[in-house]
């Protein structure tokens, strides 16, 4: 059968298998009305499930795969009251459903300053200029021809937890911690590109700029760029998603999200910072004494229990595996400790492999819940020995107006009915 482009093969609609599938589907719908109990009984042996007695769709039924229809609630979500427009806003990763250290590409949190740029890779260019011997313009083909590497790193917006400085506000793991995600990034080391242009000896700072409508730009020290930064075009085995800066973005391992410039179009080398809007008016921290901290790029050690959490309460007393994620911009996670009594006693959790530098790290601990009220906390320690602080310690050091870099220990209150709430301790 010859088909014109875009035309659906009409044969599908009259296909006998398809008709049988539809009929069974209708039957299933009817049986659902019979009630949960009856259905639950039907799902145990010796009953065969309907999908065990019917042919499934064939290959390329979905040429680009997607999650099961039964997990359609697992999506990025936003807080409508948080920002003036969705184009300059953020969405949150459903960490309550993340099963490993890698965030699926479709669930990686979004942060736009002027919407998601739709960039044609054939047109996109990266220009590197300023205090260099040889200013160059690279196409995507040029960038992909350089020696490549892959690294697994988290990206966290420093505003993650920013709504919780004054008090516990959002009863949800997704909204208190979902501005962190982790992926395998593939690209070229930025140091390779900087060698290619030849840095002049006065080169100390670089301005990195996106091709989005915000022309989002940040100043970064050249030392960091030469250390471990990546000009990335790959994300978890495929091209970067548009949400993550397709066709090319900067990865600045362990540093706050917004310096990982998406849709990267320009790197200007200079001898001093530019003090752009995003490093003066925003992404600076107002302290209690009225001073303001700028250039606080580094993400300090942080962790959170992802089960149980407000979205994933406990069902009944018994044995559970407490699960969570920890990360540090300074390197590897050395240890995570867990308290179930609000920080009086702590027990060391098990770290799941792989434990990678500047990547999400999974931790677990077996816990027997006796059905009594509990206050769950996790406390990360990184390889430099830095210990994740309490919110009280952070407030004592900085006040409550800093917005950014809240890496405090999260407390989940477990009630006798198993429900879980976001709380803060005195």
């Amino acid at each position, binding site marked *: 059968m010859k088909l014109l482009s875009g035309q659906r093969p009409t044969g599908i609609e009259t296909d006998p298998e398809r008709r049988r599938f539809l009929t069974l589907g209708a039957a299933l719908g009817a049986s659902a009305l019979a009630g949960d109990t009856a259905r639950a009984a039907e799902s145990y042996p010796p009953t065969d499930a309907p999908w065990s007695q019917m042919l499934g769709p064939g290959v390329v039924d979905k040429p680009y795969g997607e999650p099961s229809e039964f997990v359609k609630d697992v999506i990025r979500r936003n807080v*409508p009251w948080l920002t003036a427009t969705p184009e300059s806003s953020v969405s949150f990763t459903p960490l309550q459903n993340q099963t490993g250290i890698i965030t699926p590409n479709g669930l990686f949190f979004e942060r736009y300053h002027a919407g998601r740029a739709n960039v044609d890779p054939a047109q996109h260019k990266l*220009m590197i200029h300023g205090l260099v*011997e040889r200013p160059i313009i690279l196409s995507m083909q040029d960038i992909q021809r350089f020696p490549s590497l892959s690294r697994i790193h988290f990206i966290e917006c420093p505003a993650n937890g920013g709504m919780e400085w004054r008090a516990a506000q959002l009863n949800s793991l997704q909204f208190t911690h979902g501005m962190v995600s982790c992926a395998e990034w593939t690209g070229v080391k930025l140091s390779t590109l900087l060698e290619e242009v030849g840095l002049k000896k006065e080169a100390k700072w670089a301005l990195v700029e996106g091709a989005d409508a915000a*022309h989002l730009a940040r100043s970064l020290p050249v030392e960091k760029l030469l250390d471990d930064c990546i000009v990335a075009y790959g994300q978890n085995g495929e091209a970067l998603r548009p949400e993550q800066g397709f066709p090319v973005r900067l990865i600045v391992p362990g540093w706050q999200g917004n310096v990982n410039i998406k849709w990267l179009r320009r790197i200007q080398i200079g001898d001093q*910072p530019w003090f*752009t809007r995003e490093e*003066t008016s925003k992404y600076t921290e*107002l302290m209690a004494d009225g001073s303001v901290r700028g250039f606080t790029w580094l993400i300090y050690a942080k962790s959170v229990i992802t089960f149980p959490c407000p979205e994933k309460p406990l069902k009944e007393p018994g044995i559970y595996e407490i699960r969570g994620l920890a990360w540090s911009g300074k390197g590897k996670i050395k240890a995570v400790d867990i308290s179930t009594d609000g920080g009086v006693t*702590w027990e060391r959790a098990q770290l799941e492999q792989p434990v990678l530098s500047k990547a999400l790290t999974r931790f677990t601990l077996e816990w027997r819940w006796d059905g009594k009220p509990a206050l769950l906390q996790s406390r990360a320690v990184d390889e430099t020995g830095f210990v994740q602080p309490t919110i009280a310690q952070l407030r004592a050091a900085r006040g409550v107006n800093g917005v950014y870099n809240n890496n405090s220990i999260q407390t989940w209150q477990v009630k006798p009915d198993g429900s879980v709430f976001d*709380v803060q301790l005195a």
Partner: protein
Amino acid sequence: MSSSRKFAATLLLGIVAASTCVLAGERPAGYFGYGRVATEAEVAGWAISVRPDGQGLPPGEGTVNQGADAYTEQCSACHGTFGEGAERYPKLVGGSIKGDRPEPSVGSYWPFATTLFDYINGAMPFPAPHQLSADQVYAITAYILNLNNIVGSDFVANRETLPKVKMPYRDRFIWKDPRPDTKNTECMNDCADPASVRIESTAEGKELTPRTTGPLDDMKPK
């Protein structure tokens, strides 16, 4: 200079550069030779970023009065007629950093006037950015600075005057990260008096949290 001598000079420069800049293990500039060298016009076309010392500011100028007109046309719908903000868009004028609910604005917070030019030029107006002329951007910058009583009504913004504007809050910025500023320990037992463990705040019942099941929650009253 003849083209061959020019080439020889460039080559010599390249060798000198290579011998002075290349550290052990590094490749010389142009080792791969991918892409092509950017021309001055190409660099000038994209290099829009402006520094506090004025580097990057283009020719042109604008007065406060010109800015009032351009602002009304381009900016007031979101930022209010006098920079007071509209709906949830940022206010540009006034407010105080002191007190329980600080209001950071251009006047109360922004440390450099050059940043204002740079941001308006690159990112504004929000729905159609980077389309104003340099004169328009200078004028709007002058107007917003004047609304904040930082410059007089006779101020003319240009590449000479903007770097000289002293922003009120500039000296309170610290550009060196003072962290770590907390000293928690790996205490494992008797880390707190159990009687002192008390819930100070809870998100329960605050109704600020969107649903995390079902379709996206617009949080509008049903």
